[in-house]
């Protein structure tokens, strides 16, 4: 039988879950930023669009890089309870 998850977790576990949350939020944030150009269609030049898109792109890569450092460790030492609701 699985014991019910604790409602609150220790500091380390808390940090771990928030990093996973961040990994989940990142693509949503990315999508939001990449769809943003739809709002300013026609304003500014194409080269601004180029710089904006590639900057967002690079930012996503850097964020994913730092998250992956933590998450790789997480995959190596999985913590059994994976309850998103617990905080």
């Amino acid at each position, binding site marked *: 039988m699985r014991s019910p998850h604790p409602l609150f977790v220790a500091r380390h576990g808390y940090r771990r879950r928030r990093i996973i949350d961040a990994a989940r939020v990142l*693509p949503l944030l*990315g999508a939001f930023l990449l769809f943003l150009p739809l709002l300013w*269609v026609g304003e500014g*030049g194409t080269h601004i669009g180029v*710089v904006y*898109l590639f900057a967002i792109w690079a930012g*996503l890569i850097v964020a994913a890089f730092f998250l992956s450092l933590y998450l790789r460790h997480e995959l190596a030492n999985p913590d059994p309870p994976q309850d998103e609701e617990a905080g």
Partner: protein
Amino acid sequence: MLTFNLLVFVCVLYVALLFLVAFAAEKRAEQGRLGWLRSPTVYTLSLSIYCTAWTFYGAVGYAARSGLEFVTIYLGPTLVMVGWWWVVRKLVRIGRTQRITSIADLISSRYGKSNLLGVIVTVMAVIGSTPYIALQLQSVTLSFAVFASDRPEGWAVPDLNSTAVWVAAGLALFTILFGTRNLDANERHHGVVTAIALEAVVKLVALLAVGIFVVWGVAAGPSDMLSRIEASPIADWQLNGGRWATLIFLSAAAFLCLPRMFQVLVVENSDERHVATASWAFPLYVFLMSLFVMPIAVAGLSELPAGTNPDLFVLTVPLLFDQEGLAMLSFLGGFSSATSMVIVAAIALSTMVSNHIVMPIWLSARRGGASMSGDVRNVVLRSRRVSIGAVLALGYFYYRFSGGGEALAAIGLISFTGVAQILPALLGGIFWRGASRVGAALGLVIGFAVWGYTMFLPSFGESYVMSAGLLSEGPWGFGWLRPRALFGIEGIDPLVHAVFWSMSLNVIAFVLGSLASFPGPLERLQSAQFVNVDDHSASARGWSGGAAEAEDLLVMAQRIIGAEEAQALFQTEARAQGKYGYLPDTTPDFIRTLERELSGSVGAATAHAMMGQIVGGASVSVQDLMAVADETAQMLEYSSQLEAKSAELTRTARQLREANEKLTELSVQKDAFLSQISHELRTPMTSIRAFSEILMERGEVRPEELTRYSSIIHDEAIRLTRLLDDLLDLSVLENGQVSLNWQKGGLHDVLDRAVAATGSMPAERPLTIHRDAAAETVTLTTDTDRLRQVFINLIANARKYCDAEKPELRIEVRRRGAVVQVDFIDNGTGIPKKSQNLIFEKFSRLTDQAAAGGAGLGLAISREIMVKLGGQVGYLPGQGGAAFRVTLPLTQPQTDAAE
């Protein structure tokens, strides 16, 4: 000077290098030295087959035609990889635990191992991939043609079609050599993966080199390049919101659903942690690939004459500036992009075709014959080789039929939209337990049909499948069915139109079908395993060869047909093979026998799935299936066992508590008994010692004193003897060692003798005994001596303890059926109620009258005697005095005879 021969020579050299690398990697893997072959770097580079010739050549063309829109094709996959924790991680985990071999296998396995779904997805994948493969052939052919057409010096212009044929044949050869060495797709194609990793490096380096040349060689650095972009026709491009969103969605969907991407992303993955690395490294790769697309497009548009095919700017720009080495590198980059994609796509598609189309047909064709011979592996491998050839042939024919004239990007998007139809079934399958086979099949078929009608068939051009009239008027004049304006909604971009309608109708059909249908047990089991993969992943075990495999089979078989039967089956088989123990070699014969046995218990489909595992075929092993069922069953069994045990423990505890109470009580009784008996023995002993000391010490004792003292000593000695006799008697009676002398006798006689025996006793007051002679004429079978002993005891008690002024004893005899009651009732004060239970205990004397003369064992002995005689003696309250009732049977009890 670049000559065609040199070009072909370099090409052949490059292909030879690829063969060599693949061969070396396979050798290394065979020796078990996997090392970097399974590194996250190789994994990430293998993902780069997403960047095909379409990226290498087509992206620049796309940028030249539609400006920034080309990046959407790379932004979608970037979002998917950055959000790998959502989908890719789960897919990889499912792929590993369920030993998924392809995307068709995933869908089929998820929806109850439905072969129908496997076939649908396979067909969709083959049709959807065909334009894509054609695109690669087209780009390679075009790149060859560049070197021919731009050179007026006149080396013979190669026949484009024959070039395409040669390229297709070479690719087929490579794929067959390195892609069909292993049967189990999960054993992974190390050679192929290493080769495409190398190709990934080549194409990246080539594109970067051209880009750097353009930015710093043609333009004067990045800022100059940005101003050139602003000045070029590309700047006129207007962002189309619908297309922008649609393309990002479409590329994200295709990244997950393309058979070749699924192959490298999930099937070839050896470690989940590699995905973590790829989550940023793959976006970085496509970022670098896209970085110089815009500059190359701008340079091509400004420097090259109008009308030049923008899809080939990557080649033609270096050639324009006489950078022949760069052009050659660029050519190899394009060649790499095309070949790696075709190789992996062919492997993925051939696995799907052989597992979901050829094998089921082959198996059903064999069903009639009882025997399944051992050439399953050969059948699979042969079918895969043929499939590879067929897939490439299809690509070639599409290239020929579509005329080879379309922009590369347009062809690629047709493919993307086709395979994206799998997305609802895929995501629904891994996140929604309620997704059902009916829903998935409906969604897939409807989505695919809409895609075919609105996008795929029109792509052949107006002359082939669809007439111009049909396109503009709709079939049979139904305007609302026009392929590019479904339901009469016009003015939408054709791509957005096709994606929108196919995906919406797909999702609606999928959801409604799932809601309305009821899945079978296997399907529900699978849905639980897929959706809750994180809960089950711990039990993932790979199939290794030899004894371990036989052991896995035994474990599985034991669960299905029972431990004894399975062991017997395995033992018999092992003995037939001349081996000892329970683990036979897993010969085809044995597997066949086992499958037959298993199918008797769990049905043919499941048993077949197990077989499929062994032949490297489809789906899920029964072991994994049973794991879920087993877990529940074990849990139930365990909890019921616990309940039973707990009840048993409670019962035992209660018994123990009772036993403990009894023991404590007995211990108290024993202590009391011991102290009583010591006391009883010491009293006469003390007086005997005292008087004998007087006699010894005093020299002159008067004769009367002598007589008195010695008579006291004698009396006390008698009392001691009687006590010891009583104790002995009681002990004999209690231990059941007494032998009774059963005989016929009259109750009257027994009473007479008892009264006579007590009559001689000294008494303070004479006891009057009332008897009824008539009632006493009862003849019974008993031990008359023992019975008399009881009567004597009772009469003596009355004589001793009756405290009335004129003691009287009534002896009443009454017959009650087969028993006779003898009551002894005196006229004394009786026995207090609280003591009535105690009087039959040993040494219980209510008063310490000196007259007692006994040790208080009389009633205890009487009770024991009456039990032996089959009767009882008890106190009879409420008779005006002390009353005892003796109940005894008229005849000898049957049970006593046995004692």
